[in-house]
């Protein structure tokens, strides 16, 4: 266990920085005080360019791939990605390659942005020493700051995808403490890896054992009935899909296989640790999806079940459908889904290979600008598009709550919906955010509008950058203040789509 004192030595203490900031502020005057106080988060400096805005009448392939693989382009992104290849098509391929290998991307900005959020690095056992509200605050901030600043954008997008797929509401029981560890040790660790590894990590995650009652799934006596909650969601949501060909009998058999796995919750020592209690396990023979699991398997039953479902053809098709929905369109063509599912199966559940199949499909190329941004993406894309410097703090989280899309707060296991209709009622908050961001009225978040316009070569380039294409006549009104213009662009129908 690392000592707290040891960690504090990594950099100047908050107190030192605050004091320094105040001294600095006394010589700089009031306006800089905020900036000085925000400095501890080490927000990245604005990019130096070169800059360019798209010039097509419609969204071009470079902008499209930026829209979909990231949380929205930053001012410098279009020029950078376009320069990755001689032809636009080679540039797109190079960008997909880059983003499929996050481990090769230097991510100083993303790492710096969350460096001060110490709970993100705490081992699971130590999380119980913190207030749940602080844990949720830091986890939410970390998620937001990484989405805004990380250069491993596709990775962050996939972290969001899996957080929905393996949804755990941080408000239930000990998930208040355990979700923070799960985000790191399950979702982030395997987000670009192999699906079977991710699935196993999730099945044995203390937060999941709490959230879907796996911890209470036990058979200590002949008349004790296993808790089916996790078994059902494992089949319905995490793997095969609701029409994936399993029966109620299969749910019950899977539940039997998983009896005995639990998480310590009362003990003073080892609280939050996952363990297998043999005397809680139903050790009789089982049949899952027609496959026999012999008696006496004990804790091995879990791996047998996961082996049966992780790469099942229904799982391939279920995941392919969800990925195509997330990255292509709300109603992806059957043929596209089938191609992606085939790659998933052929690669034995390799997430990168599967994603590559999505991005190389014809349907992907043809889908530019057709998806409706969910609130989290709307908010992050606005911050990225404006090159905002933000501490990811309370005000932004309040906007997400207002729009019903705060991370880790969705109660049911199906995760925040992907389809647009539940999100259409959030315009009030989107417009309010657009206006507040443009007017500099969000505490802890700043934009430099003059610089942004200058970098993009003036009003026209600025508008094209925000819209991803040449503005239409009604979007090209240059008769307001720059703040009004920015508010309208961020609030416009075009900015709600990607």
């Amino acid at each position, binding site marked *: 266990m690392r000592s707290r004192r040891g960690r504090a030595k990594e950099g100047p203490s908050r107190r030192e920085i605050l004091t320094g900031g105040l001294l600095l502020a006394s010589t700089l005057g009031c306006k800089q005080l905020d900036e000085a106080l925000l400095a501890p988060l080490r927000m990245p400096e604005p990019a130096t360019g070169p800059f360019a805005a798209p010039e097509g009448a419609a969204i071009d392939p470079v902008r499209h791939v930026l829209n979909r693989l990231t949380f929205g382009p930053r001012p410098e992104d279009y020029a950078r990605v376009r320069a990755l290849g001689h032809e636009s098509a080679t540039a797109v391929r190079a960008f997909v390659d880059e983003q499929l290998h996050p481990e090769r991307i230097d991510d100083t900005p993303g790492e710096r942005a969350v460096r001060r959020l110490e709970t993100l690095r705490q081992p699971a056992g130590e999380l119980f020493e913190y207030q749940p*509200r602080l844990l949720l605050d830091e986890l939410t901030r970390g998620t937001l700051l990484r989405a805004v600043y990380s250069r491993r954008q596709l990775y962050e997008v996939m972290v969001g995808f899996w957080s929905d797929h393996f949804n755990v*509401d941080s*408000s*239930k*029981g000990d*998930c208040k403490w355990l979700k923070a560890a799960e985000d790191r040790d399950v979702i982030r660790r395997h987000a670009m890896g192999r699906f079977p590894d991710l699935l196993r990590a999730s099945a044995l995650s203390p937060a999941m054992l709490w*959230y879907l009652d796996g911890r209470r799934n036990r058979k200590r006596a002949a008349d004790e009935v296993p808790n089916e909650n996790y078994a059902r969601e494992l089949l319905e949501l995490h793997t095969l899909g609701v029409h994936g060909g399993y029966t109620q009998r299969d749910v019950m058999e899977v539940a039997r296989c998983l009896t005995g796995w639990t998480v310590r919750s009362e003990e003073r020592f080892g609280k939050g640790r996952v363990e297998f209690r043999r005397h809680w396990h139903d050790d009789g023979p089982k049949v899952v999806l027609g496959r026999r699991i012999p008696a006496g398997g004990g804790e091995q039953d879990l791996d047998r079940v996961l082996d049966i479902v992780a790469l099942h053809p229904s799982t391939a098709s279920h995941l392919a459908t969800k990925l195509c929905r997330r990255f292509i369109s709300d109603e992806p063509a059957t043929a596209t889904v089938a191609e992606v599912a085939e790659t998933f199966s052929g690669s034995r559940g390799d997430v990168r290979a599967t994603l590559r199949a999505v991005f190389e499909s014809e349907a992907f190329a043809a889908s530019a600008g057709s998806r*409706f941004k969910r609130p989290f993406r709307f908010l992050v894309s606005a911050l990225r598009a404006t090159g905002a410097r933000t501490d990811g703090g309370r005000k932004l989280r*309040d906007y997400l*709550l*207002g*729009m*019903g899309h705060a991370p880790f*707060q*969705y*109660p*049911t296991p199906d995760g925040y919906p992907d389809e*647009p*209709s*539940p999100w*259409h*009622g*959030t*315009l*009030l*908050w989107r*417009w*309010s955010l657009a*206006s*507040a961001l443009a*007017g500099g*009225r969000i505490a802890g978040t700043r934009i430099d509008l003059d610089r942004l316009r200058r970098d993009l070569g003036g009003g026209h380039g600025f508008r094209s950058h925000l819209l991803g294409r040449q503005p239409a006549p*009604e*979007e090209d*009104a240059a008769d*307001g*203040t720059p*703040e*009004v213009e920015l*508010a*309208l662009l961020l*609030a*416009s*129908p075009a900015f*709600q789509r990607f």
Partner: protein
Amino acid sequence: MTTLRGSFDGNGDRRRCLVVVFLRGAADGLELVPPTGEDGYYRARPLLGVRPEDALALDQRFGLNPGLGALHPFYLDGDLAVVHAAGSEDSSRSHFEAQDLMEHGGLAAGGWLGRFLRYRQDPAPGALSAVALGKTLPECLRGAPAAAVMQSLDDFTLGPESDTLLPRLARLYAREEGELGRSAHDTLEALQRIEALRAEPYRPTGGAEYPQDELGRSLRELARLIKARVGLEAATLDLGGWDSHLAQEALLEPLMTRLARGLAAFYQDLGSDMEATSVVVMTEFGRRVRENASLGTDHGRGSVMFVLGGGTRGGRVTGAWPGLDESVLEGPGDLPVLNNYRDVLAPVLRRHGAGDDLSRIFPDFEIDPLEV
């Protein structure tokens, strides 16, 4: 005035608003609603007991603390129900644990009010369907389809440029069809209503005078929002400071006055809108029956709940009452919980459109609704 549609639909005369006031810190039910008919009460509280002649009579058994006197007329009119020996099954006597469990409605994901908004019949979530008056979202609203933390109506505007932005937004969205276009239309109308309300100073009606404290100001903003008819269905407010381990009377008297005067002003201000507005007042647990040596009381079990307006079957103290005989007290000498808070909330939620089946709102609990 034009009728609002879509996401702000039907607030008008149909939509109902549920207001939850949480008394944080474990309010002493025996001080708020003293059992003036119980000898045991005066034996256990020789110094703190509220004397019968000081209390405002509710029935043969109970009186209302004079500090809550502003609520007494509503009780007499039959619009205020009181439930004694109310609380949750949590016996930890820990503020954090008990509030947490009560607000989540058991060991479940999300809060009970959030689940109500998500699962009620005919849900049409609008951007302003739920607000928390204050600085943070309470746990009971977790998982709501949308929940806004607000301190005043000013939080719902497009800022100083609003007049410039609104017509241009209307133009930008004019060609949008389908749901997004309808939502834009509704949002524009709602914003115009809010702007109109903000443009003139708010004048409460019915002779209401809100106290100049945080709860009073919050209730005033809430009344304004309900009258704006923007689709509000649930609101939460907190009043903290009830943890009266010492000098209880001095601590509770001003809190009770704030609570009662605030709610009375809200009630008068809303007038006939009160028929569609319910107010529930609750707390995490009550306090030890016997007073301690510091003229205070320690953590206990059962407390009181109040239900006001919205068709409440009031004018009486409802639910089982065990008396204060030593033999019925629980643990270290606490009023047992005979009336689970869910059984008090159940009929209120049904009046607000929750439907008959409340199992998704209160999982793992068999509802036995009280008559409130």
